């Protein structure tokens, strides 16, 4: 139970690192950045490569900075150029970019998962409870993501740049009129968002698996988080991330099937017939689908998302 909660929160926090950047970009520029998870993957691969040369701790700092710069460059010379033609070309641009990044990663690092190891310093178990140990690296992941969340919160609500970003979220033209360089703010936010995704990549790489399909696996879930939480709403993204993290972890622990439910209310368990398989599917098996079900439901019943103010 405690471990499931820890795992769920950890997964949720990782999602949040990605979703926070994505939701800011989405609400500021109106662009659903399909390539966002690719920056997460780049972060993991850069982290792997740099930690081979200079060690994990250098990688933890250098990889996000590099990916952030790449992100800023993509915004400056890619998105901004495409922007004149409207939102659809922008969308297609990021869509294509995701494939380009995946191919590039395959060309440089190959199609096999790379051997990205947990740094020796953190390769021990943090604590033991009821005979089960919990790896220190996971605690480290958790701490890093919580720390970044707090910093992000402070920057956005307490600093001047945070105020400008918040203003640009809702009234970009007004902010530009006041003399702020809104395109530059966009570029910075885009780069910063990519950098956050890269941090998630660097710390998730050793614990999960660093492979070319990692962006594909995470991409769709990210959109669920952003839409579910509400556009441009960081608290919404935060709640949605944790919720999805916990739901996915806890769903695995539940062995309850539709057939059991029917049995419990006295109808009896159907064991034969064309649909007999359906009754035996447990919650654990459909766990991975639950977030998408949530996406569909929230769009029907609350199109603005959990805490959003605009319609998707």
């Amino acid at each position, binding site marked *: 139970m405690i471990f499931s909660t820890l795992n769920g929160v950890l997964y949720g926090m990782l999602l949040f690192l990605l979703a926070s950047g994505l939701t800011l970009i989405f609400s500021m520029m109106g662009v659903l950045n399909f390539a966002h998870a690719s920056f997460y993957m780049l972060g993991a691969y850069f982290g792997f490569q740099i930690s081979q040369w200079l060690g994990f701790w250098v990688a933890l700092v250098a990889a996000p900075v590099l990916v952030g710069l790449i992100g800023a460059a993509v915004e400056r010379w890619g998105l901004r150029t495409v922007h004149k033609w409207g939102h659809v070309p922008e969308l297609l641009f990021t869509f294509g970019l995701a494939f380009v990044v995946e191919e590039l990663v395959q060309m440089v690092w190959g199609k096999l*998962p790379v051997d990205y190891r947990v740094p020796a310093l953190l390769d021990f178990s943090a604590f033991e409870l009821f005979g089960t*140990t919990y790896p220190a690296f996971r605690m480290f992941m958790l701490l890093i993501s919580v720390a970044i969340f707090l910093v992000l919160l402070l920057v956005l609500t307490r600093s001047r740049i945070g105020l400008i970003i918040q203003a640009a979220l809702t009234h970009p033209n007004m902010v530009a009129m006041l003399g702020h360089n809104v395109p530059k703010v966009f570029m910075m936010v885009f780069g910063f968002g990519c950098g956050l995704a890269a941090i998630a990549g660097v710390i998730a790489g050793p614990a999960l*698996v660093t492979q070319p399909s990692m962006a594909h696996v995470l991409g769709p879930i990210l959109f669920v988080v952003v839409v579910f939480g509400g556009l441009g709403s960081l608290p919404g993204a935060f709640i949605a991330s944790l919720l999805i993290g916990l739901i996915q972890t806890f769903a695995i*622990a539940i062995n309850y099937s539709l057939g059991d439910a029917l049995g419990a209310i006295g109808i009896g368990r159907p064991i034969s017939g064309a649909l007999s398989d359906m009754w035996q599917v447990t919650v654990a098996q459909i766990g991975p689908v639950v977030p998408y079900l949530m996406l569909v439901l929230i769009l029907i019943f609350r199109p603005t998302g959990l805490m959003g103010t605009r319609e998707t």
Partner: protein
Amino acid sequence: MPTRYGTGLAVAALAAGLGMTAPAFAQVKIAFVDPLSGAMAPIGEHGVKHFQYMIDKINAKGGVNGQKMELLTYDNKLSPQETVIAAQKAIDAGARILTLGNGSGAAAAMIDFVNKHNDRNPGKEVVYLNYAAVDPAFTNDKCSYWHFRWDAHSDIKMQALTTYIKGKPSIKKIYLINQDYSFGHAVRKAANEMLKAKRPDIQIVGDELHPLAKITDFAPYIAKIKASGADSVITGNWGSDIALLLKASADAGLQVDYYTYYAGGAGGPTAIKQTGLKDRVYQITEGIANINVKENLAWEEEFRKKSAGQGWWYPRVRNEMEMLAMAMNEAKSNDPKVFAEKLRGLKYKNIYGKDTYMRAEDHQFFQDIYISALTPMAGDMKFDEENSGWGWKLTATIPMANTDVATTCKMAKPS
């Protein structure tokens, strides 16, 4: 694009193997279709090395009926749809021998495709040689004249495994965790039925199915196994699904016995060593590196030199390719329609000096089956795995006669 890249590599490797004197005349093309990208890619990539090695050996001995063999590789991304596309490409490129191992979903699509292709293209028949997909259906109700299987199917392995478990009274609570597709379902069904018959006192405390090749973190599953109080786990997981399961098990310090089909795959032995589960992770296979037969040790030694220390995982690939060459040479033809007839019922002495045969009734191969456990190198063990200092040690041998499960196959022989 990735496919062409892979083929290029294979052709280059072949050219290098022949000392750049690749002959220009028609070659016997063998198409290898398996995942070469994604989570299961390490398994497929190592499979390519096995087949290339076998083809080099066969060519060095003069090939088949005066022709050389050539390997074409195709990435099916573990998907049935991609498998069919890849198979069609391979046939268009001139291959009439197809081989595929990983994923019974992909294998089922391949069997179906080959059946239809051969119906529609008389005179251009192709044959599917299956080196690893072990859904029992392929040699039972879905059996096909054009399909031959060299790995023991899931029920044969479970038969052997439960026979072994029968003699271990310390096992009281078993947890089943398998991949959610036809093969995983076959494993859990067989485990449930056979354990009930042989050890009714054993309690099955968990019966888990998880998505195939999608999970990157097994920690929640390990927590569940822990909570169930199981003393043993039975799993048919392969590729990344077994390596990551064992890795998560190591992280959580879970102490149980693992009875596996494929713990020997990429990343498995490393994770087992990390868990410290000495002599507690078993695999059931058709052979291991540390079987003390001179030919076997020499073979392993030579292959490891050529594959950066990775072991010969698939004795069945050797069986498959040697029997293929035998059947072709005996039939004096490289036409599948002719040599398939020779392959049926073909007897063969394997590298351990044991008799084996391809059962004509259902095209299922029979051989001795070995249960081994991973343990630190000791005694006469010669090879470790993944440079971990731990290797597979033989625990039990199940003689061929005891693996002989019946078949329901009614083979339709083409006219």
